[in-house]
Each structure stands twice: as structure tokens, then as C-alpha cells.
């Protein structure tokens, strides 16, 4: 795992946005995997990333016409056009602002008649397009990734999930502080679904995420901090701001800062294609 630290959350967003755009632009289509496939999160942390991607689209750096997307999760029990649904979030923050092809976007349908089938079909459609190339994610204050709340199996797949009481309370503010209106259930990709992506990039910003960040990086792999599963991912990148490093040890921060320097030197020497031999498309020092 690599950890890249930037001063502010805007810089974090710019870094990841540029990173994803480079990935899309260097993608080589294959017959069994014709499109770049991007996994996407919702929430406030990734907003600066979306903002950067929209900027890059507007100045002509990147096009999303041929990009296929899969979102992480969606509530069960609120309509698709509800102001707090993840369909609405994605349309407002990203889809309506770029040239993405609507039929290339996938979001779990929380209103589906058969929720089990909806989850199985979702996994199947990820396979159909040749798997996810890059899964962008965030983490919760309790270290959850997607709606894989503490205690979720680290080998879980797309499924129905009951939300943790803490998450429900936290979401209350989006539903007029009416606890009864907050959805109790969600559909979410599993930890394993994320782990199978070729590359995972996490955006972690703000001091309220600092404990979760330290637990997922400095603690062991643990189902109470589901994002810690990424420690076993061959190609995971966490980008955080200075605020989020508050609970990390100084030693940890220094180590990852030095890695970034070495990484730059490796790339300067071998170029980003040097690691093609590793099947990764990019050199990695971690």
C-alpha cells in the first residue's frame, strides 16, 4: 500500500483527479476488456475529485465517453430521484457535468423487486466488462469501505446490508433530522468486490477520519476496520490530507513521504511503463 499526503483536501482531489485521468488516457482496450472500468464512491470526501475530473473534461484533457462506471452502493427504500439518493448525488456531482454515456453507468437499484437478484446481477455485469480497473473509494469514520460496516466479512460480495446505528444517526442530518426517514438498509459492493479491482485508490480527508486512517494502515487486517483489507491488495493507493494524518505516528508519515520521493526517482528512470512487466502499468516502490 502507498500513502500519499497532500496539504489540503483540494490538493488531494486534484492529485487523484489527475491520476485517474492519466489512467483513462493510457488505457489500452482489449477485445475482452474494451473499456476502462471505474468504480465510484459517493460522499463529501470524493467531491474535490469529481470537481477536478469535471475540470479536466472541460479543458479537453480527458473524455468519459468510453468509460464504464460502477458505483459502490445505494440506499434501499428511498426513490431514485430522492435528493439524498446516490443516483441523485452521481447525476449532480459528476454524470450531468461530463460526456459520460448514460448506458455505461451502473448504480445498484435499491428499488429493485428482488434485491438478491439485483446484487447477483451487479457482480455478473462487473465480470462481463472485464472487471474493474480502478476502484475509487472513501472510508467512514469507523474505517468502513462502501457500506461494509464494522464486522463485515472481508470476503463479502455485493449484497443487502443493514446500516450500523452510528451510520443511521450520522445520516440523520440529510433527512431533516427525522430518524424514521433515514434508510435502514443499503445495497453495497462487498470488500472482496473492491479487492478484485486491479487498482484501488482511497481518498481520506479531514481530522474526523484520522483514527480510521491510522487503524487501517498501522493496525492489523481486521473486520472491524474493513478498509484494512486493502493491506493485502497488490496495488492500493491512499491519498490523504495533513488533517487526516493526525493520529498516524510520525515515523509512518515520514516513511510514506520518503517512498513518494523514491517512487518519483524510479519513474524518472524507468518511466511509467517500466512496471508493465509487473502487469501493473506503473512502477511501484511500495
Amino acid at each position: 500500500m502507498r500513502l500519499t499526503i497532500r496539504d489540503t483536501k483540494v490538493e488531494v482531489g486534484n492529485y487523484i483527479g489527475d491520476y485517474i485521468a492519466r489512467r483513462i488516457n493510457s488505457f489500452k482496450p482489449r477485445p475482452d476488456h474494451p473499456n476502462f472500468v471505474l468504480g465510484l464512491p459517493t460522499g463529501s470526501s470524493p467531491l474535490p475529485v469529481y470537481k477536478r475530473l469535471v475540470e479536466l473534461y472541460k479543458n479537453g484533457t480527458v473524455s468519459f465517453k468510453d468509460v464504464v462506471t460502477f458505483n459502490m452502493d445505494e440506499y434501499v427504500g428511498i426513490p431514485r430521484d430522492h435528493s439524498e439518493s446516490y443516483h441523485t448525488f452521481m447525476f449532480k456531482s459528476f454524470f450531468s457535468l461530463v460526456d459520460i454515456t448514460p448506458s455505461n453507468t451502473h448504480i445498484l437499484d435499491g428499488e429493485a423487486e428482488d434485491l438478491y437478484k439485483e446484487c447477483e446481477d451487479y457482480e455478473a455485469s462487473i465480470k462481463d466488462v472485464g472487471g474493474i480497473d480502478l476502484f475509487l473509494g472513501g472510508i467512514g469514520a469507523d474505517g468502513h469501505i462502501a457500506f461494509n460496516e464494522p464486522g463485515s466479512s472481508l470476503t463479502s460480495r455485493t449484497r443487502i446490508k443493514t446500516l450500523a446505528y452510528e451510520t443511521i444517526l450520522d445520516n440523520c442530518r440529510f433527512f431533516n433530522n427525522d430518524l424514521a426517514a433515514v434508510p435502514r438498509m443499503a445495497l453495497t459492493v462487498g470488500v472482496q468486490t473492491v479487492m478484485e479491482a486491479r487498482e484501488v485508490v482511497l481518498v481520506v480527508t479531514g481530522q474526523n477520519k484520522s483514527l480510521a486512517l491510522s487503524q487501517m494502515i498501522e493496525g492489523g487486517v481486521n473486520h472491524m476496520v474493513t478498509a484494512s483489507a486493502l493491506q493485502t491488495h497488490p496495488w492500493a493507493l491512499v491519498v490523504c490530507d495533513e488533517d487526516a494524518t493526525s493520529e498516524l505516528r510520525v515515523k509512518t508519515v515520514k516513511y510514506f513521504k520518503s517512498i513518494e520521493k523514491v517512487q518519483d526517482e524510479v519513474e524518472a528512470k524507468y518511466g511509467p511503463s517500466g512496471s508493465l512487466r509487473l502487469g501493473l502499468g506503473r512502477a511501484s516502490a511500495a
Partner: protein
Amino acid sequence: MTDVIRFTNGYLAMPDGTAIKSDLYISQSTGVIISGQSNFYSSLLPPGRTIDLDGCLLSPGLIDVQINGAYGVDFSELDLASGSEGETKYIEGLEVVARRIVETGCTSFVPTIITQKEELYSKLLRLLAPRSAEGSAHVLGYHAEGPFLHPLRRGAHSQTLLMTASSNPPIDTVEKVYGAAGLDQQGVKLITMAPDVEGVMDCVENLSKRGVTVSIGHSDATLEVATEAVDKGARMITHLFNAMPPIHHRDPGVIGLLGDPRRKTYYGLIVDGLHSHPNTVRIAYGAARESCVLVTDAQSIMDPNLPDGVHDWRPGVKFRKEGHRVVIDGTNTLAGSNSPLPTCIQNLMHFTSIPLPEALLTCTLHPAELLNLGGKGQLKEGFEADLCVLDWEGRVRSTWVAGKEVWRDDRLGKGDRLG
């Protein structure tokens, strides 16, 4: 490709008088405003066309509830002697105005007829049922200004044609003039009448209940009489300040209705800078901004393309046009109004120091509320895609009716960029 058009890179005029930076989606086939999000996830197709507003303001189409004519057409002139030929000619005239008026951002209007011979009404009102032609503004119904007006406040209306409702019950006279069919027909039925004219007060409730919008105008009424009319159902005051007693601090008259919190009364205002002094406009607007309705009260000579100078009008009469001021040639007598709505909006902005999106409410949301026009006057999902694009000076750039572009400023060319 879909028939969906997306307006982007501009601002939307909202019903609270503000503007927000947002996209608007319309369907060309159904002619209504749709949810871009529902369309995205349901049709799974991108919009068929994207229009770049280039920072301009997208507003609901403008609505004019008092327009006597334009482009050489007078809505009060029906040649009864020629029978059906006269009616055909009348409809043609109506269609000319509907087709051309869209250049002023107007997408709906209520043709207004000034006091006519009694026998003309039943014929005329029938011709003024709602009418929508391709590429033209909607004709919403009729506005009958008269004949139950007060002689002291008749303005340009003919003294000899004014009437009272002196029958028993008075509604019989009113029904006889407009025709029961005319009072009960589809669409907008707006009648300007003076509640202080004999019998009129007794008819207000009956008319309001059958869907007629009663507007107090050409009246010498005291505030008490005007208030009683509003309590019986009258909803509007016709061209405030004009053809009514001027406000007196001990006897405010009809104007005293303004701003009554228990009786919301809309009022028409001609903001051409001539019919009311700019400061008078400011006072009225300050007293009751939620019920202000801009009207052109335009005459047949209204035509923004007509150059300044002397033009023929009626036989033996010429008029002289100097900008938006039109006088009978050789005199200083105003020959009626001929300022199109965008000019009135710009004036209102300047006279009252309000921003454009707020000024637009006076000819979008307010007239739609006044006339209970469901589906018009707001940029809202499910509402009609009657639109008007304006720059921030209040100049019209393009006009859309039922989802189709019906007019565009020549200087903007034909592409997908407006501004």
C-alpha cells in the same frame, strides 16, 4: 439520440426571484420540462441536443394579460358586416400577432378588447378561445375591458358604449352582453369592470364562481367599495393608477387595496415610463411586490421593428414614433402604449432597483397565479417548456414555445450557443 434538449452553462430564474446556476432539460416531443436525472437513468441516452446559454438567464416564457393589439392588428376590430369572411380575417390577424410577438419573449397573451357595441361581444369572445399554433405564442382566452366601466374614468373608451347592469337580477344584463357561452367557455376569461357601476357589484361573486377573473378598473370606487368587490371574488386591479381616482391620504380609493395582507389583489402596471412616473411605479412595487403584474396594454401600433418617424394609423390620423413614445402626429397626446414586455421589465429593474430574475416574476409567476394557469410561469418539472433566454440587461436572445425554438436574435446565428 433522444428528443431531450439540455440547457447548460447558464442560470435559471426561480419562483423566489433568485437565479441559480443549473441545467434545465426539456422534451421536444411532449413540450414540457423534464427531470434530467430521471431521463438519464431511464432512457440511458444522452440529451439529443445541448444548448450553451453562455451565462445568460433562462426564464419561463413571458405572459401578457393586457394587449389590445400589435403589428398593425387591433383585437377590438371585427368586421361584423362581412360575416364569416370578417371572422377569418380576425383570426388571421390574431395569428399574425401570435407568430410575431415571440420576438419580445412573450409566449402567452390574453387579447384585450376595449368597450365595443353590445352585439359584438358574443361573436368576438367565441373567437378568443384558447389557441396554440406551431411556432406561435399561445392565445390564452380573452380580456374584455368594458363595457361596464365608470363614465368618469372611461379613459379612451367610448362614452356612448358604456353600460350599467340595471336589470333584475343584474347578472342577466352581463350574460346578455358577453353571452352565457362566452362567460363559461374554455380558457382565460378576464373582465375589467367598475364595481361602482350600477349592478356590477352584485355580479362579481357569480362571475368569479364560474371561472371569470374579475379585475377592478376604469372605476371611481372608494376603498370600501373596492374592498367589497375583492371580498366577493375580484382578483385584480386593471392598469393601476390609470383610469381611477388618484390616491389621497384620507381617501385612498382603489389604490388603497395595495398590500392588504388579507386580500391579495394583483395589479396590472404599465411600466413604459410614460403611463406612470418611475417613482410611482417604485411606490406601488414597494407596497405589494408579490402581486405586481406587468402588462403592455399595447396598441396595434406596437412593433419593435418599426422605425422612428411618422406612420399612417387610422384614416386621416397619423402617429409619430420617437423610441417607445408614440403620439398622435402634430400633438403631444399619447397614442397608447407600445413598449414590449422586455422594455417594461428593464424599466421596472431601473425604477425599483431590483435584479432581473425578480423583475421577471411580474410577467411569469404572477400572471400565472392570477389566472390559475397550471403548468405555466415556472421552470418546474412537468411545466410547459415555454421559455425565454435573456441576457443580464434584460434583452431577449431566444424564445421557445412547447419545447421548440420559435425565435432567436439574428445576431446569435444558428448554432447551439446562445448569448
